């Protein structure tokens, strides 16, 4: 697995919703090798505060044009700075990093569960999965957010012609309640499924529990603070069961962010 550390040029920077931006970066080696679920570490400026780079999942990659993009919401100083980067400016970029979603080829139905800003890696995964689907193999998107306007990536999913089921906490769109309720329902349907999920860790824990109960293979992309993104600081530890039945810490940035849900020790 090769990683690249390079200055990437901003080729497009668009508002994609309330507080939501898509950033398209020119970085051919990253665009060519990125796999869905992987992320990049970005550094818009040399600042002491914010100090760390931040990880962003790859939303889509176009190997031919040598570009990839990320989707982010402006939350605090870092993303504010990021949002100020004009087209033509450079952003120091490291990637692609981490593990990726692996299509479970035995499944008849692929259920992608996205919570809020967790959607981008699943958009990328869906885009790469759809062309490989065999007859009788389906894909379903379950997406949840607090409110209608916080739903992310719907355009991307729709462009793939995917079936989308939506949940919002306040009922402003789709089912009123948690996206995990939609998952519970879907898992009741009698079809062999595999689940791929990204969102807040609390959501993923419920997803993992539902899948474990149903014996459904499940991959989750975990959120963790990531000072380095390349495996040296051990800051992004995730507690896992080791093959020999023990407990140890794995790095969300190298062995993750995508883990098999059954490996993870949820606490």
């Amino acid at each position: 697995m090769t990683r690249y550390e390079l200055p990437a040029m901003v080729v497009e920077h668009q508002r994609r919703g309330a507080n939501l931006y898509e950033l398209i970066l020119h970085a051919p080696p990253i665009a060519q090798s990125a796999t869905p679920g992987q992320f990049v570490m970005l550094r818009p400026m040399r600042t002491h505060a914010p100090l760390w780079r931040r990880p962003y999942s790859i939303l889509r990659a176009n190997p031919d044009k040598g570009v990839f993009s990320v989707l982010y919401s402006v939350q605090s100083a870092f993303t504010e700075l990021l949002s100020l980067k004009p087209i033509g400016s450079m952003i120091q970029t490291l990637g692609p990093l981490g593990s990726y979603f692996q299509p479970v080829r035995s499944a008849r139905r692929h259920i992608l569960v996205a919570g809020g800003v967790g959607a981008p890696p699943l958009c990328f995964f869906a885009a790469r999965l759809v062309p490989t689907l065999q007859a009788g193999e389906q894909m379903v998107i379950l997406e949840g957010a607090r409110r209608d306007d916080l739903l992310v990536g719907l355009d991307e999913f729709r462009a793939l012609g995917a079936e989308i089921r939506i949940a919002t906490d306040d009922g402003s769109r789709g089912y009123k309640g948690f996206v995990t309720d939609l998952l519970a329902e879907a898992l009741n349907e009698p079809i062999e499924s595999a689940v791929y999920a990204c969102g807040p860790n609390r959501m993923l824990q419920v997803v993992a529990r539902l899948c474990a109960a149903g014996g459904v293979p499940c991959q989750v992309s975990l959120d963790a603070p990531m000072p380095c993104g390349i495996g040296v600081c051990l800051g992004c530890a995730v507690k896992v069961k080791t093959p020999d039945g023990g407990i140890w810490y794995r790095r969300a940035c190298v062995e993750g962010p995508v883990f098999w849900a059954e490996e993870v020790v949820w606490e």
Partner: protein
Amino acid sequence: MTPDLRVNLGRLQLRNPVMVAAGTFGYGLEYRDLIDLAQLGAIVTKSLTLTPRMGNPPPRVVETPAGMLNAIGLQNDGVEAFLRETLSRLRELGTPVIASVAGETLEEYVGVAVQLSRAEGVAAIELNLSCPNQARGGLEFGTDPDLTMQAVAAVRRATHLPLIAKLSPQVSDIVPIACAAVQAGADILCLTNTILGVAVDAHTRQFRLASKSGGLSGPAIKPIAQYHLWRVRQALPETPLIGVGGISSADDAIEFILLGAHAVQIGTANYVQPTLALEVGQGIEAYLRANGFDSVDAIRGVVY
């Protein structure tokens, strides 16, 4: 004329003064694809303990203004695994490997040091004195002159290798501690390690680290680390010093050298810019050249 970047820290001789700090560069090999490790002055390993340590539960790190807190809990595979699996690969780089030693008892420090001394390819031992002493209710060795003296003396008896004592900044006056370390046989002093801090999440009303408190590092602490280094330099003009704390540019490193450091270590900033250690080396060279100095030695300690 190319300035001479070599520095002599007594028996430890380096081709340039820029090392990477313990615990911030993995075992070193993790960076192989991103930078040319052969150009580093030295690599300090993450701190090694006698037996493997799982480390602390997450969250283990949190960003703070111009810094970060860490409570990794010395996660490492233990000194034996290091000697078996990592050292020989590190040795091939040709870059001096300094092994950092951690312990919660004198016996543990000594045990690790003995094993390292028997191995081929360890250039020096760095004693991490910021470890909590089990016998003294968790008081850090490096905050007490007696404990410092005991730990350094014990390891000194156990190894022939150059011995670096890495001091804690968590003190009112670092001079007595530094003197104790040197008296007990430390060849070199490294200052400083992290400072204790906490961070709270106002919204969840919880500590941001599972272990509650952690060590503060990064640019935020540079003035503090430089203060301690400067004071030790005045008190112990003959002892080689390594400066560490908040370095994120060549200028930062030069400042430590001007205050009296023979060499510097880069910690937290490696995360943000994996190539930084090499750039700092180049930056020091460019600085010497631009200002007409022929060596690192020529600028050491000129600010006092």
